[in-house]
């Protein structure tokens, strides 16, 4: 059954088109909150848990989270990784320099928020390290407004 080695013509076939997604009302309000330097979570009427970023449905309770609440801008670094590469359209490329990504438990929330972390060395990175949100200077109501987290 083994086929002999052959060369096949290999055309490059790109896929290039645009999807127009709706982000939904909760992410819209979450991003609008950024303009006022506010971080919004949603609270489940069933289990009472608060998750950030705000989203509409609670998995364990199978209920709609009706209430949006402002949460603290400070919290603890629970998990982290140091990126040495970036992925660009599926290709691994070296990063300009090592950078830290962290999963942060903002005070009063029951989930972890992924963000860039600055000013923490690998040696100093420990679960429980206190960090705070740092905003961009000009706020656009965009994902990038919440720039990174740094030690309190």
């Amino acid at each position, binding site marked *: 059954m083994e086929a002999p080695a052959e060369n*096949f013509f290999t055309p490059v076939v790109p896929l290039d088109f645009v999807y127009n*997604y709706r982000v939904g009302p909760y992410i819209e309000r979450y991003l609008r909150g950024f303009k006022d330097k506010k971080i919004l979570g949603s609270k489940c009427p069933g289990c009472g848990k608060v998750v950030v970023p705000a989203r509409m449905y609670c998995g364990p309770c199978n209920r709609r989270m009706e209430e949006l609440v402002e949460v603290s801008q400070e919290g603890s670094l629970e998990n*982290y990784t140091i990126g*040495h590469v970036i*992925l660009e359209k599926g290709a691994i490329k070296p990063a300009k320099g090592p950078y830290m*990504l962290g*999963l942060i438990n903002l005070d009063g929330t029951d*989930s972890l928020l*992924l963000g860039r972390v600055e000013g923490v060395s*690998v040696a100093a990175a420990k679960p429980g390290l206190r960090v705070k949100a740092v905003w961009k200077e000009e706020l656009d109501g965009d994902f990038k407004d919440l720039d990174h987290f740094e030690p309190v």
Partner: protein
Amino acid sequence: MNRKIAIAGYRMKAASDLVTTRERLTFELTRGLFDDLGIDRDHVGTTIFATNDFLDGRTISNVFLDPPAGVYMRDESKVEMDGLSALVYACMRILSGQYETALLVAFGLCGSQVSPYLHVEYTLNPTYDRQLGLLNELSAAGLQARSFLNKFGYSEDLLDEIAARNLRNAALNRDQARGIKDASAKDIKDSSYLYEPLRELHTYPATDGGCAVLLASETKAKELTDKPVWILGMGQSIESYYLGERNLYESRSTREASGRAYAMAGIDKPEAEVDFAEVSSLFAQQEPILTEALGLYGPGDAEKAYAGDNGIAGSLPVNPSGGPLGAHPICATGLFRLNEAIKQLRGEAGKNQVKKAEIGVVHGQDGVCAQQNTVVVLGI
């Protein structure tokens, strides 16, 4: 189960680049399997593909596969997930009483056709995670590795040991795409960091590969083979997409799935009753996370296990084949675990053969950091 179901035969093939087409790979696998069993397409009751339209770059990508798979004008369907999910579907079709045999065909051509990392990138929430651009398959795996090491106080050396063991085992196995003969922990540590603590050699290789598997009812299986391998139990479970709502150092959904599979198989004490496991650990840390979730090793037992117990010659071997660090043909990987378990149960695993192989457990996963998991228990 109200009917017994066996695996009658399989074909599998993997390489970093198979220099082939989807159609040709499908033909070689299915026609080869038919020839092994001395049958033709008339013996196949229903066919389930496990392929991925995104990776194939075309919608309903199975429409060109009916001639090579022998399903022209036949009963055919598809599962856009790991092949073990397709196996569960195929079993249900046999259990319905409508079919005596079911053919599974699964493949992924991410060695040559398209980057495997796009598969997870386009799984991500398009209106949040993809906008932020921080999360990808490798950064998620880096976070999972760190969470696991921190939780149990392990050093990064453990990840090197796990990867070295798998790549050594894979080098003994001709069905793997990548192996490193005599790989040492140092060889692994010499590879570059991707997302610290995760290094290049802690991760699966981009792989071309596929397989065909024939399932059959008890009567039919006994006609087709002298060495049927029986499906004793199966279970599935899915947990939250959001990494921030999961403990990444454990796999709760795998625990749920294995509980269902063991209950069906009548297994009360997996650590004593299961002889070996083949798990879809795509990154080094996932192997101990998954085997703990399967109830085979206790939480925090990993260092002890990798000192020998879970090796080929150990008391409860894990991935004696070398696992997905040797090959990860997306969509076929769970069935590769199944085929490796069949080799063990039939005593055909060669240098990878474990001492006792009467009951084996296999695992397949989908999603970021094993969000969705399937567990199947096999026996002879």
